[in-house]
């Protein structure tokens, strides 16, 4: 089995999440049902607070600096994620197709390294 990261990609400028209570309720219901149907394959899942809640921690010349705000300021950013355990990329892709339909925004699939 391999672990895969499913990144949920939000366009925070043109199509921000948590904007329409009715649409959001539909989305949460779809995601909840999707989660329930694959719960034995979910290592972790969670939605992130908006990018302005991020804090950057970076080492420069031996000093660790802490600054408010995200690493990269772009229109599209990660809004949440699943860590999924799947037999292979083919199974991960089948699950990702269901994930993007459930959450209504693009999903990026990337395998974790083996430790």
């Amino acid at each position: 089995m391999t672990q895969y990261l499913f990144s949920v990609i939000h366009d925070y400028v043109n199509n921000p999440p948590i904007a329409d209570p009715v649409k959001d309720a539909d989305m949460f219901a779809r995601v909840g049902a999707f989660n329930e149907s694959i719960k034995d394959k979910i290592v972790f899942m969670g939605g992130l607070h908006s990018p302005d809640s991020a804090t950057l921690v970076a080492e420069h010349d031996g000093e660790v600096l802490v600054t408010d705000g995200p690493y990269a300021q772009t229109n599209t950013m990660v809004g949440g994620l699943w860590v999924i355990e799947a037999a292979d990329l083919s199974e991960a892709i089948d699950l990702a197709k269901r994930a993007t339909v459930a959450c209504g925004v693009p999903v990026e699939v990337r395998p974790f390294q083996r430790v």
Partner: protein
Amino acid sequence: MALYLIAAQDREDSPFNLLADPAPVWEELTALDEAMRAAGVFVFSRGLQGPDATVTFRAQPSGEVVRSAGPCTPGALAGMWIIDCASQDQAEQWARRCATAHRCDVELRPFQPHVSTYL
């Protein structure tokens, strides 16, 4: 307690060359995981494979799902920790230790409540 994502970011101008001497990095990362477990904050940690192993799926209003090779975002996410902390301050202390152990920039960001709480 609240869940936080600590996202490790690859940086093109990184002053560190991890490939030159990776053993101390792996040792420090392993020790950091152990410290997180001992402190009761550890949820998950793992490095990602490269961007060229990434596939993107886009749901269309028609119901079709379009697949494309490569990442969806221009960022350079290299791996992540997920921790369960009592406060932002505590999470920032762990984020500092992650940046130091992995010799990389990290982004700390809190998770929302679980999706089921919105139903």
